[in-house]
């Protein structure tokens, strides 16, 4: 039976292969770091956008809430 790590690595391998298409520019042979970086970036990029928007929404409501509270106190 495959361990979760082995499963993850084999999925990673298929995803990496999908990223690497034929007919594109050559990379250095020792370019595992480069390829992985592309994969990770596509994984975390979307999460980062959501995180950034969430922070903005959070800040907006917090400022709004504080403003309302200050007005009530006055």
């Amino acid at each position: 039976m495959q361990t979760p790590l082995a499963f993850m690595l084999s999925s990673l391998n298929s995803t990496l292969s999908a990223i690497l298409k034929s007919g594109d520019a050559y990379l250095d042979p020792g370019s595992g770091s480069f390829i992985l970086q592309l994969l990770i970036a596509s994984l975390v990029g979307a999460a980062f956008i959501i995180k950034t928007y969430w922070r903005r929404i959070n800040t907006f409501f917090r400022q709004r809430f504080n403003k309302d509270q200050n007005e009530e106190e006055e």
Partner: protein
Amino acid sequence: MIKEENGLPSQPDGASFRDPCGYIFSFEGVLYRQINKRYKSQYEFLIESGLYDALIKKGYLIPHKEVDITPSDPTIAYKVIQPDPIFFISYPYEWCFSQLKDAALLTLEIQKLALEFGMTLKDSSAYNIQFHHARPILIDTLSFDNYHEGEPWIAYRQFCQHFLAPLALMAYRDVRLNQLLRVYIDGIPLDLASKQLPFRSRLRFPLLLHIHIHAASQKRYASQQVKTSRKMSKNELLGLIDSLESAVKGLKWSPHDTEWAEYYDDHNYSPEGLKHKSQLVSDFLDTVNPVSVWDLGANTGYFSRLSSARGTATISFDVDFGAVEQNYLSCRSQHEETLLPLYLDLTNPSPGIGWRNHERMSLIERGPTDAILALALIHHLAISNNVPLNNVATFLREICSWLVIEFIPKTDSQVQRLLASREDIFSNYTIEHFENDFSRVFKIHRKEKITESERFLYLMEGL
């Protein structure tokens, strides 16, 4: 070409030969950085884009001024700049956990700021960071390149090897594993880090990605030519930096049960004795008024602070990571700008490493210092490490002009503790031999008995 007074051309610094964009050289004792013509457009963009000012305002980059001196090599030179001096160059294998972590976080902050201004860090070497005024700072002004959307971060692998891998090993396995950086000058190989880290480190998603899968990917593509036209958007790049930041922030280490963590509660001084010793050290420092002090065996820096509080640039060296960690955290929280805590095993001090043994300087090459504090130290060198007293004297003379040293006699319980587990072959460990051996290379100016103890404090000047 600039020539030193001895007629020899000014040579690039031993660590500054890889970057074709420029290099550090010294002339008449001052360090300069030559910027080569090939870096002209990047340098101009760094200044004109406002990135340089933003970095200086935040204290992230060492400030410099452009100077009108003949470059070291005029045929390829564009400009010469003079960076503000750093009082002591230290290396990542001399830093405690929090120092390496702060340096890592600074590197990521700089990369985020650079991207805002259309630039990117082209390398992320831990050696480009130094500690200046109690905080990390980037010293390589030529580390920036123009950012073109779609490009990945070229310094990603280096960041993982120089920062993430050693921090993870220190946090998960043993804090002493940062000493691997002394062997692997370009950072810890990720396959080695991955093998050494425990399985539970794989349960942390950023470490799983940036160390374990990264190592597997390096292995998988090590001997293959691969092709891709895949681009990385700026948001993806920011996501990558954010993920590295989470990985670093999630790593924690705190000193507990280390060798000297409780030393100040476990010494041989009465409150009066400690007060008297502090007073004597302060008096001696007032007499010498040194520009720089190295406190060897400083523990958490109690006596170092008698020097740094006077405004003297002081390095607080200790062999215990817990002590250095505590010292650094206190230094950082109190903004003690003239104090730098560092890890040092005095019985095996940092050697010259890297290309031609010149890339990173040995401890001795970074000296001498004006004055040394060697308090409660001599018995560790002479008895624990079997170094003859005359040899200790010669070494200390090599690295300082003034010496404040404490002699601890055999009858002292701290020495008895060291002798408990070994045969007493130290018949020459007496105050008479100590004074004789040290008098060969130092002149003894003062000798004071510390109140309510059997210990003596000396002020000596190099002959």
